[in-house]
């Protein structure tokens, strides 16, 4: 970029003041509480909205200019990638399953984030946070759109992505990211800012985007790498908004501190549970690995998050207590998740496989305390069974955690041989949880979480079959009916990678790209 820098009449600070607070006014015809009805009920006390300032001091005029530049760069690369059959340059076709996970699990969340920030911005009486929320709302819809545009090229050639939004709203494991964001946007505006703005964007986003984007770069996926970096260039601003909002709320009134601490505890855990999908992507789905989940957690949470919470200690904010349990789980999380998806490959919109010998050696080196002892033996057994023609597809439905909606697959903190079960009786019903943290979140807001749309319960209640299905007919195959409802084609969109059309096509097309036929 070689932009002409015009001489400015006002300095950055003055321009920011003029273009935010300078455009605001005090209403006289309507009462403030009628215009901003959601601002009081969460118990957060704000005395002076003008104390909030975006430290980047970005104003809308500059915002459009830089966002346009980002779009030009991005679309030039997407065009080049598509024109050159860039999809055939990825390391191997297994990699494409990470794209399927991303488009059906993450991109729809970008759209919900767009709505969430539009709503939060509308709810705040302060001009500074309102403008910053407006920018983030626009960023998020840009992310949703650029991801759909980039990935649509893969959809032309590979299976499982054809109706990603339909899948997002229905497929069992996609209720994990979906319910996470639904939980956030149905909270009040301050809790939304702490949940997404702070806990997700500041504390956890590096664990989603940096490994995913570096993973794309490492695996020859220029299209994904570019939209990832383009989105990520907005993330630095989102992180700053998240941190500034937290500092602002805490500085406004000491009574805000315990409320904010509870939200940080809740949303760090909620976000971490969603990142289970990223953990298995990093350790199993990238043919060429960047770093292990455990290493990423240590760099981006333990080291970087540690610095953040040390800085926030002056307000009385502590490291979320779930960090202790997460540290105990880091040797196990990705392996337990991949084992589950390997089992449920008949009911998912992507393929799974067993790691080969080299990959097992990598896993053993990265996870010396857990891999060879707990996970290698079961993988070797499954591989043996598959070689004999007994590739196992689990067709029964798992019990789900009422809060995070993940199947109850996690082991007790500190004991990898025992599944962790917690339960609560509430108004005559029993609710199940994967952990103490999910249980505590439920206990604090039971009326919210009893309403959870749990895919397994919904299937058993007969709500996940195509219209007109009669489950009482002889020989009824519930899984086949559920796949139809998901709009997934059995044998094409699901099952093991080894027998997939993706694998066969990729090999054939790559052959055509390098030989004269």
């Amino acid at each position, binding site marked *: *970029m*070689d*932009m002409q*820098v015009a001489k*400015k009449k006002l*300095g*950055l*600070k003055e321009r920011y003041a003029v273009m935010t607070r300078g455009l605001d006014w005090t209403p006289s015809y309507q009462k403030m509480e009628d215009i901003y009805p959601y601002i009081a009920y969460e118990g957060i006390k704000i005395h002076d909205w003008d104390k909030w300032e975006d*430290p*980047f*001091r*970005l104003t809308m005029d*500059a915002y459009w200019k*830089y966002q346009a*530049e*980002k779009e030009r*760069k991005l679309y030039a690369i997407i065009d080049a990638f598509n024109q050159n059959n860039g999809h055939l340059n990825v390391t191997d076709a297994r990699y494409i399953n990470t794209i399927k996970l991303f488009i059906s699990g993450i991109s729809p969340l970008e759209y919900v984030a767009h709505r969430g920030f539009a709503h939060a911005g509308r709810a705040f009486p302060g001009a500074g946070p309102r403008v910053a929320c407006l920018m983030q709302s626009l960023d998020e819809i840009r992310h949703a759109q650029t991801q759909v545009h980039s990935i649509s090229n893969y959809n032309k050639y590979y299976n499982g992505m054809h109706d990603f939004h339909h899948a997002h709203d229905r497929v069992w494991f996609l209720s994990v990211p979906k319910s996470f964001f639904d939980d956030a946007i149905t909270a009040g505006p301050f809790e939304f800012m702490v949940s997404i703005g702070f806990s997700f964007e500041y504390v956890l*986003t*590096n664990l989603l*985007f*940096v490994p995913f*984007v*570096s993973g794309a*770069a*490492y695996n020859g996926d220029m299209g994904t*790498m570019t939209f990832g*970096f383009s989105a*990520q*260039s907005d*993330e*630095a*601003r989102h*992180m*700053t908004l998240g*941190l500034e909002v937290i*500092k602002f709320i805490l500085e406004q009134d000491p009574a805000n501190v315990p409320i904010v601490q509870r939200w940080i505890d809740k949303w760090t855990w909620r976000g971490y549970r969603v990142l289970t999908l990223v953990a298995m992507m990093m350790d199993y789905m990238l043919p060429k690995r*960047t770093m292990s989940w455990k290493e990423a957690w240590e760099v981006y949470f333990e*080291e*970087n998050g*540690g*610095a*953040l919470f*040390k*800085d926030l*200690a*002056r307000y009385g904010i502590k490291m979320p207590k779930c960090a202790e349990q997460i540290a105990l789980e880091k040797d196990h999380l990705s392996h337990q998740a991949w084992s589950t998806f390997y089992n449920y490959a008949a009911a998912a919109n992507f393929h799974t496989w067993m790691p080969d010998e080299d990959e097992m050696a990598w896993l053993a080196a990265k996870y010396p305390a857990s891999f060879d002892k707990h996970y290698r033996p079961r993988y070797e057994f499954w591989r043996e069974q598959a070689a004999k023609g007994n590739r196992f597809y689990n067709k029964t439905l798992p019990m789900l955690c009422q809060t995070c909606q993940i199947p109850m697959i996690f082991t007790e903190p500190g004991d990898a041989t025992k599944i962790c079960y917690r339960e609560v009786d509430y108004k005559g019903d029993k609710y199940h949880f994967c952990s103490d943290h999910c249980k505590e979140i439920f206990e604090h807001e039971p009326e919210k979480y009893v309403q959870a749309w749990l895919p397994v319960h919904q299937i058993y209640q007969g709500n996940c079959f195509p219209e007109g299905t009669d489950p009482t007919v002889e020989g009824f195959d519930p899984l086949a009916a559920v796949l139809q409802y998901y709009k997934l084609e059995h044998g094409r969109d699901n099952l093991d990678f080894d027998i997939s059309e993706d694998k066969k096509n990729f090999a054939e097309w790559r052959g055509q790209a390098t030989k004269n036929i």
Partner: protein
Amino acid sequence: MSTVFLALQTNEETRPIIEAILQDNPSAVVDEQPAMVKINADGRLVVRRETIEELIGRDYDLQELQVNMITMSGNLDQTDDEIILFWKS
């Protein structure tokens, strides 16, 4: 002091910016990753407009950095002349 960092895309625009940052921050350490350069520093990192302008030979608006930024850590303060990342503790 805790580490602050700034991560930029690896490209022709950021090459002189990274050079400028290293000139202005003797404690900064470069960590090159796939397609990304992460600059770590102890407690404080400053990006100065003038140093960048000397290296690229034209006027530079620090907000242009928005286009190439990937992630960062620390409290931030930006003016016409500099971007500062810092931890208070």
